[in-house]
């Protein structure tokens, strides 16, 4: 900046000289006037350039600052618990070897809806939105496929249409939640680093940074994100990050009466999750999109999107 100022000063001095000689005529000769005009214009342009480049360099400073804070998970939580920020600084959290995974066994799920209630209570999910939900797929003998949303009261509660079992070829329940993609589109599109990945591979939202543009909501192929009307931030399933960092199970997993939801460490070959994934064929949703979800399913067919 000082260098630029010195250039400006030198030019200002040079402005009164023509061809190396200083004009003494106070009323101003043509050459002198031209020189003054040139000088004035040059000063203006240089000042403008200094302001523009100065502003640009100022905007770059916080960029690097922002990137630094991203590496520190203590800087952000997903909005459901302020405690997450403190948990992020534990030794466990900084263990880069930890990779969490999730398995949903649709052959076990009975559509009880207990996971839905547990999630809503645990994460204070507003009415009309869902961090997790359960779909009932019914394949009829005539080839039709019917999909319904299981109410929180479960399959035996009100809300699900009654179906004649004689018409049904097969039926199953599909719990849905965040896929925690390795190549998460929601993370990619977030313009302000509010969507970030924890060291354990969990996609989180920084409630202090989110501008509520909803680009991440549009980018998620699984409909897992929403704008929380109470916080005005993007909101999503975090696999109960605040719980799993305390070596607890996610609320939905704990509430499931039939162990249809399995949460665990992918990096530990002895974990139940790793063992089951190794033993049973599993699938991911919308594989063709290349998002590489860490949520895997047992027993789903191509109709499930």
């Amino acid at each position, binding site marked *: 900046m000082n260098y630029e100022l010195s250039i400006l000063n030198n030019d200002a001095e040079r402005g009164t000289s023509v061809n190396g000689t200083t004009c003494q005529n106070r009323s101003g000769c043509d050459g002198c006037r031209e020189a003054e005009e040139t000088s*004035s*214009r040059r000063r203006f342009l240089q000042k403008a350039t200094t302001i523009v480049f100065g502003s640009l360099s100022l905007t770059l400073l916080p960029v690097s600052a922002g990137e630094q804070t991203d590496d520190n998970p203590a800087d952000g939580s997903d909005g459901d618990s302020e405690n997450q920020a403190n948990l992020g600084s534990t030794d466990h959290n900084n263990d880069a070897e930890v990779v969490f995974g999730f398995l949903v066994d649709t052959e076990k799920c009975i559509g009880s809806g207990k996971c839905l209630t547990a999630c809503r209570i645990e994460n204070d999910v507003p009415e009309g939105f869902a961090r997790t939900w359960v779909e009932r797929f019914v394949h009829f003998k005539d080839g039709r496929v019917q999909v319904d949303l299981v109410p929180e009261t479960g399959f035996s509660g009100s809300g699900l249409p009654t179906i004649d079992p004689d018409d049904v070829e097969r039926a199953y329940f599909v719990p849905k939640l965040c896929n925690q993609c390795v190549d998460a589109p929601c*993370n990619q599109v*977030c*313009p*302000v680093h509010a969507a970030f990945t924890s060291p354990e591979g969990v996609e989180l939202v920084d409630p202090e940074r989110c501008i509520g543009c909803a*680009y991440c909501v549009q980018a998620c192929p699984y409909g897992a994100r929403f704008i929380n009307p109470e916080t*005005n931030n993007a909101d999503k399933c975090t696999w109960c990050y605040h719980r799993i960092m305390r070596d607890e199970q996610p609320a939905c997993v704990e509430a499931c009466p039939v162990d249809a939801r399995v949460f665990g460490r992918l990096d530990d070959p002895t974990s139940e999750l790793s063992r089951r994934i190794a033993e049973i064929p599993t699938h991911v949703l919308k594989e063709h999109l290349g998002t590489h979800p860490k949520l895997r399913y047992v027993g789903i067919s191509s109709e499930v999107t």
Partner: protein
Amino acid sequence: MGESSFVFPNDLHAPWSIMIVLYPYITGLVAGAFVVSALYHVFHQDVLKPVARLALVTALCFCAFATTPLLLHLHHPERAFNIMITPSVTSAMAGFGFIYNFYMLLLAVEVWLVFRPDIVERANSRTGLVGLFYRVLSLGTREITPGARAVDEWLIRALAIVGIPAACVLHGYVGFLFGAIKANPWWSTALMPVVFLVSAVVSGIAALIVLYLFLCWRRRVAPDADCVRALSRYLWISLTVAVSLEMLELVHMGYESGAEWHILSTLIREQLAVSYGLVQLLIGSVGPFVILLFAIRPRLNPRMMTFCSGLASVLVLVQVLAMRWNVVVGGQLFSKSFRGFVEYTVPIGGREGWIAAGVVMTLPLAALFVAGKLLPLWTDCEHATQRADQPKPDGPLVRHGTTMTILELHQTSDTIAKEKTIT
């Protein structure tokens, strides 16, 4: 295979509202209007001189309010500057702040340079607060010698040259925002940025024709027929390219008939039947195409030509708005389950309602009105085509501060006589 309707629970709420429809509409008008001014400043299309200043100021006024719908849409508008303070390099949206500010700066500087002689003249002649305003606006440089103007002209041309790719980036980028969302088959196409870009040019030219004709009518001055015809010709060409690309995109989707075509075809046939089939394609594309084809015939009566051009331009503006609606809202009318549809209705009030949308679209026009009061939007060559039935000015006609020559006055009389004969 028959399928029931099913919507993911979070898809019931369309997160992008009418404000996100208006945002690309406004930036499109900016980019298009700038392209018209560049045609004059860079490609020396002198026939566009009557609208060259209007084009630049229109671009600036709309650009100044391009962020308004975004701020109304953001759930945390107070954090809007995060997009420039902590931008994510992987996000297409993060480029917005930089692209927008660069373009806004470029436009502001170019407008200032174009109007500098007028600003300086007023700074020197006016007194009081008005004089102070122009003196501040002159930024301390009051040289309007031929040498200084030569430098200005060089800078104007240079900025216009830089501005063309900048305008392309500004609006192509908006299309990219949608085209890069692989989760949405209605948006995810490489053609999207190109379609947005060309339709931006279309909307900018159409807006200029409408504004020019309206302002001529308000000033009781006959519009420059050659200029309107040239603009109509550009509009017809760009409209043809834009609609062709839009159709190419649709035909390509249908011909491929990918996994999601069943939901997209239903979307087009049912949910978007009116806004896409009727408004965008029939009224907004076929209509202006035919009308403009008629309007640009060289021997057409100037009054009929301007009427047809104006009508076609209004329809084109509706077409582009419908296109933005069909892309932005249409892409949110089906669930990512690809099994069901949702409804979106614009509320009357609220931050993202009809009234707010009306205000957003009025603000740039209000700014244009104010700009028209502060700066001379019209080059004096238009006096040459002053309506014959209007009373002639008492004093000598003035062009750029100099009295018109006898020869020019003769030419003016000839032009008026010619117009009389034609009409």
